[in-house]
């Protein structure tokens, strides 16, 4: 049996025939194993969904109770038998509840890592290296120019700006699921204990993080605040909202954006960002290459992102590597919409 007989890309996503399931399918399927709660990976309408408890909760928050025919919560490390294969979920360090899915069949082990990062994040379980034969890796930041550095020093930069411009509001664009809560947690670690304000689109998911026991300090809704009272404050908002009329309620806002993309100036400028913060929930180049080596896998499948460079790198290291043609991933925040009452003044 070859690895591609166990897992292969099809239009709906990564398909496991011998196990009778898909991983992170982009179209409705009978049985889906889902790595994490971002909307490009976790879609509604599948027959059965297997995922971590947190991922299932996040899907319920986004899509409502009937998002799948049936659900099954899987704990990290728990082994489940599906058809001819066994599957196991391991922490991916990407967001709360995110998992890599290990699929084993007749002595061949494949790890589909979903989105992952190998650096510290106070809001989720740390990434775990899973030894395997085939490692399926993302390549969102698969170019050697992407090196994210310390997230803590980026947060320091934000706080320095807040103290330099006390009469202005700081608006931090961040993906609603994961990034926003991580930035808040990092601010608290840096000693910032003032209330932090939230765009309406982040309230639900952020209180879910708090319910799961992640301390985020005092959070308030930005909605209904007087303009003058927002001077000197920090507000988290979905990236799309930071260039919206919504920002007019803030006094001379400094627009920050917390993302790995902020490493490249042209990219940051295109978005009209004034204070780029290089904080990423995806592994950077050094993280990708170190992880690939650590898994001991002899074969690497590279998906969503800058596949060319990473495939080239693998081959120069003597690893069999190929791009995996999967579409539909990479827009984590696309489906976030502005809830009623947030738009306008």
């Amino acid at each position, binding site marked *: 049996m070859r690895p591609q007989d166990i897992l292969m890309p099809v239009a709906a996503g990564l398909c496991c025939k011998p196990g009778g399931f898909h991983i992170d399918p982009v179209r409705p399927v009978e049985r889906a194993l889902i790595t994490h709660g971002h909307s490009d990976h976790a879609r509604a309408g599948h027959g059965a969904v297997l995922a971590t408890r947190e991922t299932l909760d996040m899907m319920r928050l986004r899509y409502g109770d009937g998002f799948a025919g049936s659900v099954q919560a899987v704990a990290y490390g728990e082994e489940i038998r599906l058809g001819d294969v066994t599957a196991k979920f391991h922490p991916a360090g990407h967001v709360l509840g995110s998992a890599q899915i290990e699929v084993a069949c007749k002595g061949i082990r494949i790890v589909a890592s979903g989105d992952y990062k190998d650096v510290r994040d106070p809001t989720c379980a740390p990434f775990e290296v899973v030894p395997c034969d085939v490692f399926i890796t993302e390549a969102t930041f698969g*170019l*050697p*120019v*992407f*090196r994210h*550095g*310390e997230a803590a*020093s980026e947060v320091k*930069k934000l706080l320095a*700006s807040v103290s*330099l*411009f006390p009469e202005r509001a700081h608006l931090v664009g961040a993906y609603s699921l994961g990034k926003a809560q991580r930035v808040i947690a990092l601010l608290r670690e840096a000693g910032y204990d003032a209330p932090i304000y939230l765009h309406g689109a982040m309230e639900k998911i952020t209180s879910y993080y708090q319910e799961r026991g992640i301390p985020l300090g005092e959070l308030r809704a930005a909605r209904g605040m007087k303009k003058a009272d927002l001077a000197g404050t920090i507000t988290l908002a979905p990236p799309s909202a930071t260039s919206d009329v919504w920002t007019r309620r803030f006094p*001379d806002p400094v627009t920050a954006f917390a993302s790995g993309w902020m*490493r*490249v*100036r*042209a*990219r*940051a*400028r*295109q978005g009209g*960002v*004034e*204070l*780029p913060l290089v904080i990423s929930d995806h592994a950077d180049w050094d993280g990708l290459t170190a992880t690939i080596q650590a898994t001991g896998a002899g074969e690497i499948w590279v998906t969503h992102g*800058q596949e*060319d*460079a990473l495939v*080239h*790198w693998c081959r*120069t290291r003597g690893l069999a590597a190929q791009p995996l043609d999967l579409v539909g991933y990479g827009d984590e925040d696309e489906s976030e919409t502005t809830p009623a009452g947030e738009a306008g003044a």
Partner: protein
Amino acid sequence: MNRFAELLDRLAYEPGRNNKLKLLVAYFRKTEDPDRGYALAALTGALSFKHAKPGLIRDLITERTDPVLFGLSYDYVGDLSETVALMWPKSSPSAASGGGEEGRASSPHNTPPSPTLTDVVTTLRTLGKTELPARLARWLDELDETGRWALLKLVTGAMRIGISARLAKTAAAALGNKDPHEIELMWPGLSPPYLELFAWLEGRSDKPVNRDPTPFRPVMLAHAIEDSDFAALDAADFSAEWKWDGIRVQAVSGRDERGHIQARLYSRTGEDITASFPDLVPSLHLPGAIDGELLVLRGGRVQTFNVLQQRLNRKVVSPKLIKEFPIHLRAYDLLGDDEADLRELTFVERRARLEAFVQKLNDPRIDLSPTIPFASWEELAAARADPKSAGAGDDADAVEGVMLKRRDAPYLPGRPKGPWWKWKRDPHIIDAVLMYAQRGHGKRSSYYSDYTFGVWAAGEDGEQLVPVGKAYFGFTDEELLQIDRFVRRNTTEKFGPVRHVVHEPDQGLVLEVAFEGLQRSPRHKSGVAMRFPRINRLRWDKPPREADRLETLERLLMTMTAN
């Protein structure tokens, strides 16, 4: 260096002037001497050292990285310095600290301290060319990403961060609650790292005095006037004179410690060009500072810029050259008269002093720029349209347009809006075809914004386009988007950052190009080179076959050099 890098990084993203000012003031306040002084020098363009060539930077990265990965990265980032700064390999685990501290004392044993801005600037001044690559590599090892980016921008002389020298000086002035104009006036006598300046600003010493007998004074420049500007302007408030097509210079004379007259000639950016025009020096025999135009005069007649061109960029100024191209200074303004600084006086007052000064000089090589009498904008428009009969006579071909100067305005450095206007004669216009496009720099790095265009000429295989120039401005932001889209959709070949764009008789984009002048150029395949070409309009309506021909340009060249 890291703190300066952080400042540059932040300034590059901050659009608001007042916020930029605040960032600069905060930097000057928290940074020690001499680093902040060298930073001020870097921001005002007052640093001078031989710049490193991009090829050197490329070599350094090629030795250290996989060429395929470098190629993919460069293509993604679009800027050489930034690509290298981001992908420079970590030399040792301790080298790439993320912190922003300048201090070397705090660095633990074995960690190479990152260079300070002072280290970089003072080293570059004296470093030999062969030592540069190794030194640069060591610095790159020691700095973080932002530090490497700033270092590479600095050493390649490509620091474009969207702040003016004026703003940097204003920030320095704010440190001591001083009027920035005070700094402007004393600026020529100061040099990096400006220890006396900061001491004065912080109230630790007296105001610095200028000891240079022949200082350069920052030049006052004019805005181009638009038709719509006239409505708000009263002709009676302005004086007008011809805008001569030569080289704007500042001729400064002063007495050194022994009382001897020293003379210097500066370009409008403050570059000392005295050595290129030794024949003018004896004429500058009275202490003072003239703002004027360098021209070549033959038999009392002003020659065109093409003639003056022969005297530029010469390594050796031979007696033959001096005789064939006799240099002349046409005086516009007087900034200093002996010990007196005239820059605070009004234009009318300065003009009176200038007339007296030129008369006292009594030198055939120096004369007054004549004023143009006019009572209304209509009269001035008529003079501009026909300089020959409006007083310029046989010199009319060397007239580029008209200068307007407010009678009550002091001499202000930079390009203040309002006191001075330039009203150029209508430029030459041709229709050319877009041939190649290249990605721009800085905030345009994601756009194809540098365009090579050509006109038709008879070639071996029939009609073909020959490139005649390159333009990267003149278009609106909206037009830039349109051209960028066109380029991406009509690329025939890619070479690194350059794209070949379709240019067939019936397929392609016609650009209306405006330019100020033409000259012969053996370096160009077409044999001609344009001065100040810019995109005037996009001619979506015109098929490339109807674009202009090389003969049109050649004819124009003949009329321009005929006299």
